[in-house]
């Protein structure tokens, strides 16, 4: 018998399964659940984009692309950055097309982090940053954001966690799970702290198109920041393309060229069909994005109002498609609340703690659902709150 304890990497074995997973397993056993737990759009990918993929297959475009991605696509990405955040990235050497934002996060962290390096992680946040930092032997250093600051990263909080070993800040805005955003002035203050350091920033802007108050701003736009920032974005959320597995990253060429080596050895090139579809997404889908954004925005207003009326305090988030109501008034922990809610009313929401300790006392509610669905869920949550009084 082989002894797996002896063959498996300690790092892999010690890696904690995502907190979401545990709750997923519970939800799975219950029938008739109405879920507010999903982190992906309910819209189908716009037809034009699907058509472009079909066309490419009909033409037999079924081979690897260039490692960094189709040059036509990189040129469109370059134009996209210029029109959305007003930064010029060279398609030939500053952009890589990746397998989702996920891969971009993975290879950019690995390109930068060495054993012992400290990486600042702004929590609550998406689940993958810490495990990947640990894979590289890095030390995740958590910065907890607070509801009273609308879950924005404050410059003092950042300053307090910087040491000689700090190598990297992962900036996750618009934020999953809180829906928080960072406005230009907030980013200016962060840039002020970082400008004279040797700290890099990975800015995960996968929800950039889903910003409901004014335009999305990237930290790379702020003076002196482009040279120390890797911007990550993708097609999953803004174009409703989660299953296509396509994202992209841009940054200084002296960083990107090393990221590209990791990408090349691990992936070769991102899915070809998806890349052809993505060219059309960037060329001609601004209206579709706007329509989806307007729809999310209506749901956002509805759900924020509904939770506040239920007595679960909920700040009005300005980004992504999540709200993060506070459930402390029920006296329960996040885990308890979610478990009781799903068992008694069959409504699935995700405990805030799945996104970091600072998520305790909150739950993540996704509004990537139709209004009718949201209304039914709210009705059940209202009954639940009534019953536990």
């Amino acid at each position: 018998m082989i002894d797996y304890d002896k063959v498996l990497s300690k790092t892999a074995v010690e890696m904690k399964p995502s907190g979401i997973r545990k709750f997923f397993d519970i939800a799975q056993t219950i029938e008739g659940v109405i879920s507010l737990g999903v982190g992906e759009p309910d819209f189908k990918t716009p037809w034009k984009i699907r058509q472009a993929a079909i066309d490419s297959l009909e033409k037999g475009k079924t081979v690897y692309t260039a490692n960094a991605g189709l040059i036509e696509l990189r040129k469109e990405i370059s134009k996209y950055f210029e029109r959305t955040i007003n930064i010029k990235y060279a398609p030939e050497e500053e952009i890589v097309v990746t397998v989702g934002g996920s891969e971009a996060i993975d290879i950019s962290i690995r390109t930068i982090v060495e054993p012992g390096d400290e990486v600042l992680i702004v929590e609550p946040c998406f689940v993958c940053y810490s495990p990947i930092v640990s894979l590289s032997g890095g030390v995740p250093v958590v910065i907890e954001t607070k509801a009273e600051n609308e879950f924005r990263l404050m410059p003092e909080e950042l300053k307090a966690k910087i040491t000689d070993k700090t190598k990297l800040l992962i900036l996750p805005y618009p934020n999953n799970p809180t829906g928080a955003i960072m406005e230009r002035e907030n980013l200016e203050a962060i840039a002020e702290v970082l400008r004279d350091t040797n700290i890099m920033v990975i800015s995960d802007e996968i929800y950039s198109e889903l910003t409901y108050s004014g335009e999305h701003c990237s930290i790379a736009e702020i003076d002196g920041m482009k040279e120390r920032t890797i911007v990550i974005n993708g097609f999953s959320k803004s174009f409703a393309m989660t299953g296509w597995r396509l994202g992209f990253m841009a940054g200084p060429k002296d960083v990107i060229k090393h990221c590209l080596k990791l990408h090349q050895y691990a992936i070769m090139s991102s899915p070809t069909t998806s890349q052809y579809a993505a060219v059309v997404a960037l060329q001609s889908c601004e209206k579709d994005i706007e329509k989806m954004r307007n729809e999310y925005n209506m749901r956002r207003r509805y759900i924020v109002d509904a939770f506040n009326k239920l007595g679960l305090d909920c700040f009005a988030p300005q980004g992504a498609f999540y709200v993060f109501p506070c459930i402390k008034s029920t006296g329960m922990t996040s885990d308890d609340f979610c478990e009781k809610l799903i068992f008694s009313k069959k409504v699935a929401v995700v405990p805030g703690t799945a996104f970091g300790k600072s998520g305790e006392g909150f739950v993540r509610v996704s509004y990537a659902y139709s209004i009718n669905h949201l209304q039914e869920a709210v009705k059940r949550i209202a009954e639940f709150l009534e019953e536990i009084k």
Partner: protein
Amino acid sequence: MNSLIKLLKTNARLTNAELAVMLGKTEQEVAEDIKKLECDGVIKGYSAIIDESAIDTNSVYAFIELKVTPQSQSGFDEIANEISQYEQVESVKLMSGAYDISVAVTGGNIRDVSQFVSQKLAAIDAVQSTATHFVLKSYKDNGIIINGDETDERGMISP
């Protein structure tokens, strides 16, 4: 206004209070907007979207294409208005192309509709010819998907 219309089209039973929240307006503003849409004749009424086949499996729905001789004074209006009076007629539209007027008709069964076409529509002097198409199955009506197998393929929980 467009967002308001869209919301009402998919669910006319949303209250003004609910609409106001979703649109970021006050209830009063929403009430005024709706009033205006009604006065301007943009909103003609509020009705439920019914899947007739779910009530009565024999009921039928048909589109009838009419070729019509236009009248010297009123063109097609008079005929179209006349046809609109019948209770079984769901919609009447003047069309460009190979025929002139499209009429949607419901009936308890195929014979009802056939009789209506031969005895009422074909009997109108100005009607030169009719072509009746029975609907076999409805997939989407008034922008609402019915009868679809649109299941949510997403998992229940994802990051």
